């Protein structure tokens, strides 16, 4: 199994031309772990997680466009059709509304579908089923119908894919009671959270990131075990610090860690929190950190209004107001549909410099 899972970032395939122009992040802090530890790409982490869950539970099955014969639009489901057959790795016609509704119906009847959206932008065509047929069913039926379904796929901006392929849906889904919303960053996050999502009896929205698929991360022996699972609703402190708290999720965690490096050079200790779980939000960890540092910078890729950052800001103001020494700063994507041109796209997304500047402003080191 290891033979077909290990793969370099370049031949990962996928639709976007970005695979050729992808920048490799140098995860200095992550790589300072013990030498000799294994590494795994996020893609392999997701693939192995699905594989192990399918192997452990015959009720788990995968459905989506191109998941089978094509090996997955982004190769996340590579090898699964061969291993489990077409009844458990189901290539669907092009109808998000159709296959989402069907997945929910299969979950009603006791199966555990893992529904792939080619990107979460396409999930909008199925959002009625995600919210009205899946999220609310347990409540509306008073516990008679439960929906152990997981919806997964790439979310947020990729590189040069334009307005209709770049939106981040974390805020939309995380506002719905009845759903759980997860956003992994590293390979360990990807494995642990996807396994948790598939095993969870409630509907879970699992937001991946296309640009992270090819990224390699060190991974512990514990995380490689097939029973490994991360708890839903717990954030991870990626880097400890005492001067300013930076909360974020998904690809922005990498940016925040780089920003923390830069800030450390200027004597500012940033505590970087990887949210991992957008709903339920780990308010306890966030507030505990803010009470320690007294300053908060929240970062997300998505649109600023009514975003995840807004919720975190409100939570901190409600619970830790007297601990704040500076106004909360939100760094989010620009309030415009994502432009295509590379230079405009870069300006429309948060960059490391934006995070650094915001942190320094929070520390009153700059305007």
């Amino acid at each position, binding site marked *: 199994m290891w033979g077909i899972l290990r793969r370099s970032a370049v031949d990962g395939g996928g639709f976007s031309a970005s695979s050729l122009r992808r920048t490799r992040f140098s995860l200095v802090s992550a790589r300072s772990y013990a030498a000799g530890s294994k590494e795994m790409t996020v893609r392999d982490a997701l693939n192995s997680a699905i594989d192990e869950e399918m192997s452990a539970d015959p009720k788990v099955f995968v459905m989506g466009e191109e998941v089978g014969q094509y090996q997955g639009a982004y190769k996340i489901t590579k090898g699964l059709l061969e291993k489990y*057959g077409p009844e458990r790795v189901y290539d669907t016609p092009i109808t998000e509304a159709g296959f989402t*509704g069907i997945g929910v119906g299969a979950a009603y009847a006791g199966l555990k579908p893992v529904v792939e959206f080619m990107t979460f932008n396409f999930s909008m065509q199925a959002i009625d089923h995600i919210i009205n047929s899946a999220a609310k069913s347990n409540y509306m039926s008073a516990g008679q119908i439960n929906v152990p379904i997981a919806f997964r796929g790439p979310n947020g901006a990729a590189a040069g894919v334009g307005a209709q392929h770049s939106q981040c849906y974390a805020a939309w889904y995380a506002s719905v009671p009845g759903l759980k919303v997860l956003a992994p960053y590293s390979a360990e996050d990807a494995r642990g959270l996807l396994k948790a999502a598939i095993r969870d009896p409630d509907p879970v929205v699992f937001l991946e990131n296309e640009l992270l698929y090819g990224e390699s991360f060190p991974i512990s022996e514990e995380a490689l075990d097939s029973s490994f699972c991360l708890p839903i609703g717990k954030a991870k402190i990626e880097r400890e610090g005492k001067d300013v708290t930076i909360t974020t999720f998904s690809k922005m965690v990498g940016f925040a860690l780089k920003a923390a490096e830069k800030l450390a050079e200027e004597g500012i200790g940033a505590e970087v929190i990887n949210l991992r779980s957008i709903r339920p939000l780990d308010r306890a960890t966030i507030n505990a950190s803010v009470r320690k540092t007294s300053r908060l910078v929240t970062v997300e890729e998505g649109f600023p209004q009514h975003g995840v950052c807004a919720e975190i800001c409100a939570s901190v103001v409600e619970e830790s107001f007297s601990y704040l020494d500076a106004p909360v700063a939100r760094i989010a994507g620009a309030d415009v549909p994502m432009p295509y041109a590379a230079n405009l796209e870069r300006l429309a997304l948060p960059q490391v410099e934006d995070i650094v500047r915001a942190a320094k402003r929070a520390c009153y080191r700059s305007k």
Partner: protein
Amino acid sequence: MAQHLKSSSKSILLNILRHNIGFSSPSHASRHLRHNLPHGPLSTRLAPNLITRYCNTMVDTLSSIGSHEDTNSQVMDFPGGKVAFTPEIHFISESNEERVPCYRVLDDNGQQLTNSQFVPVSKEIAVKMYSDMVTLQMMDNIFYEAQRQGRLSFYATAFGEEAINIASAAALSPDDVIFPQYREPGVLLWRGFTLQEFANQCFGNKSDYGKGRQMPVHYGSNKLNYFTVSATIATQLPNAVGAAYSLKMDGKDACAVTFFGDGGSSEGDFHAALNFAAVMEAPVLFICRNNGWAISTPTSDQFRSDGVVVKGRAYGIRSIRVDGNDALAMYSAVHEAREMAIRERRPILIEALTYRVGHHSTSDDSTRYRSADEIEWWNKARNPLSRFRTWVESNGWWSDETESDLRSRIKKEMLEAIRVAEKTEKPNLNHMFSDVYDVPPLNLREQELLVRQAIKSHPLDYPSDVPL
């Protein structure tokens, strides 16, 4: 992997393609890749599925074989199979000359038609069917009146569709999973839901299986395999296909059955579900109650096809049009459809023609968009109850006496059910927060504590009849 397939499966594929040549009947052609493959338990069907799946990509590479054999004939391979060519420019008409005929067993007066084919019904079943139709009608009447008196907030009747409700339920097995729209409480009634249980849901009290979470008529029962009503139109169709797929994977002797109206057939979910069910070979019955009206929209404004039955063929689904007000015809059609769906693992579409005698709901006054005469005519002259009663009586299984006994018993039961349901306490406060997730998360437990604290400190601001 593609290389491996080309060499080793090429001969299998050629054999299958050779069987294609010479097929003239459409039903054979539609099974062009399957006819000589075994229909067995899932494990033996995996390999054939793989071959089928990879077939389309191989047609291109083998098309050269096709053209060598057929240089002078009018047949050519395209992806999807062989088609004959024609030199005439001819558009398929938008509709047939004649509408699809409607299957019925009893005439308007309840007399059995002379050459009618139908599945025989025992005395026990026939009497239960008729009794349940009467019960459904009376239940609707009394709940409707209760709403008009202000005792219920809302109600939707199934007047005119009693035969569809009861006869379809009678033809199914208790293991068949039902995905209703909202006008099929008769299916629950047939399966044993009591008048008290209906009343509890309508009044949203402590004994409601729905814990007071939904409006009246949003019934659901896990025990009776009836999925809780979700008011969004036609969303239950793809859900039913998914459940059917699950039943197929488990090898159960059961199918999924889903109901929807003429209006529901316009929804995107209808098309996705039918197409998908055919491709997936899911054992599901799609029962359309074409009652002529979607609130105030008549079918002439809903679609321009010959009703809903003709849409089945567009998706490769076997379909039938039935007189929905004829209990025997409905029973037979659903009975046969169920057999086919399970045995042959295929979806079936049933269009039951009927008329919505009642208003869309208590929020509607249908005399504003249709004539009271029209409603009266359907209620009196084409009533499904009177037609079936005539047939049941002609067999000596019913009489005026049994009718009046039944009616007085149901009336008493209904009034008692309402009396009890009205008096029963509302659901407990903790049910506001339960079932959002499998296990209540921290934020909801905190919210509940906050609510309880607020009630304690401001008791006069909160209703006194909500048990804490």
